[in-house]
């Protein structure tokens, strides 16, 4: 089967059903190095499921997913090794409440990447510094604001040096005044050349940071294009309606 050699992430013909509910009905998505692909669409259109299939938190029913050309759905693939290279950030942060910020970032560095403690902590501190939270290394999640927790969650992912980062509504659970700090970190990541797929409703961020916007509807990609085109002159009236409804 031919595939795009230059792609970091390549999804072909992805199908996913939950019981009789077909949630993804043949999705194709190619993300190239240093690209930021923005995914929008109504609630329940399958955005989260698409991201979660990309690191096999959900098992697709059909289709192929390649990370740097390697088929991650192949039967003998080491999924834990693959996941180390795919960073994921969740709407609800999901920090480990029993570990401090440093512990949260260090865990996979030690247990998955196999780094000795000192090296792991050095890498973790670097990642925390990158999200502006080096001085919070010893703080526990319950001592951090939502925005800080989400930045620690980003640090936890980037510390593993992933080739692509998946963000699932990273700012949706945040108070409005905390959204900016998380978007600033994501912008910095993008500028440093990280390949990213972002599901979000932050249209202003999309307009200024996205290379491409994808509109999902009922488990399919309805339209994709540069932000200016998709936001200002979409082919589908549905998209115009949707964008008007969130930008109001």
């Amino acid at each position: 089967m031919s595939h795009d050699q230059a792609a970091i992430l390549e999804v072909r013909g992805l199908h996913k059903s939950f019981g009789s509910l077909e949630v993804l009905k043949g999705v194709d998505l190619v993300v190239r190095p240093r690209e930021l692909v923005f995914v929008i669409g109504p609630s329940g259109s399958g955005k989260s499921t698409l991201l979660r299939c990309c690191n096999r938190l959900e098992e697709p029913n059909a289709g192929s997913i390649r990370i740097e050309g390697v088929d991650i759905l192949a039967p003998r693939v080491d999924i834990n090794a693959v996941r180390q290279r795919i960073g994921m950030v969740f709407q609800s942060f999901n920090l480990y409440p029993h570990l401090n910020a440093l512990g949260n970032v260090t865990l996979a560095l030690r247990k998955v990447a196999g780094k000795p403690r000192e090296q792991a902590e050095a890498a973790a501190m670097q990642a925390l510094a990158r999200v502006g939270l080096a001085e919070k290394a010893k703080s526990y999640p319950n001592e951090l604001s939502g925005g800080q927790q989400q930045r620690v969650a980003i640090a936890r992912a980037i510390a593993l040096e992933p080739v692509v980062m998946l963000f699932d509504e990273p700012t949706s659970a945040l108070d409005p005044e905390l959204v900016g700090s998380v978007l600033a970190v994501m912008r910095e990541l993008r500028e440093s050349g990280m390949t990213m797929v972002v599901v979000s409703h932050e249209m202003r961020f999309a307009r200024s940071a996205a290379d491409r916007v994808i509109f999902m509807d009922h488990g399919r990609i309805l339209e994709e294009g540069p932000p200016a085109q998709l936001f200002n002159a979409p082919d589908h009236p549905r998209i115009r309606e949707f964008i008007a409804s969130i930008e109001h």
Partner: protein
Amino acid sequence: MFERLADTFFNWQIMGQYFPKIVEGFFLTIELALAVVVAGIATGLLLAIVRAFRIGVVNFLIVAAVDVLRALPPLVIIIMFYFALPTVGVRMSAFVATWLALALVLAAFAEEIFWAGILAVPRGQWEAARSTGLSFLQTLRFVVLPQAVRITIPPLTNRTIAITKGTALGAVVAVGEILYQAQSAYSFSYNPSPLTLGAIAYLVLFLPVVYLGRWVETRFAWKR
């Protein structure tokens, strides 16, 4: 009247006479209780971990065994082990029968408590950990169990105290623990003072445990 009471329940001479026996029982009770706690909690935790793999048949067997052990009065299990099993050729000492019965009962309750703790850890914790490449077992060990155990400690402490007090049931099959020593002293001396001494021994042993349980409960009250 008061004198009679004192002579009946606090007869110093008889108390002194049987004191060494009660002390002997005291240490045997500690031994038995510790063996029950260690084996029971370890087995309960192990069963909960096995159950986390969600293998249909295995989980069915675990749940069935746990339900039976929780439903049967511990004394019935002790008597079955000690009196009934020998008829099919399985023999064990009274101490082992009591230990095994209580350890199994504690294991059953502990399994349920640990399992509830594992279920109480949000799915997002599993997903976050797995998304960084941690394996199922690593996630269980480093992310889920530390949180589950913390939720588990207060109910587990209470249950453990309740079941360790069941060591007194060993008296029925003549395990020389506190109650047995006190009772046989009583039947030799026709004076209840050894029973008083036995009750005091239980207080000395279990009051600190009860206080420890209370401390643990406040110490681990869930903070997030």
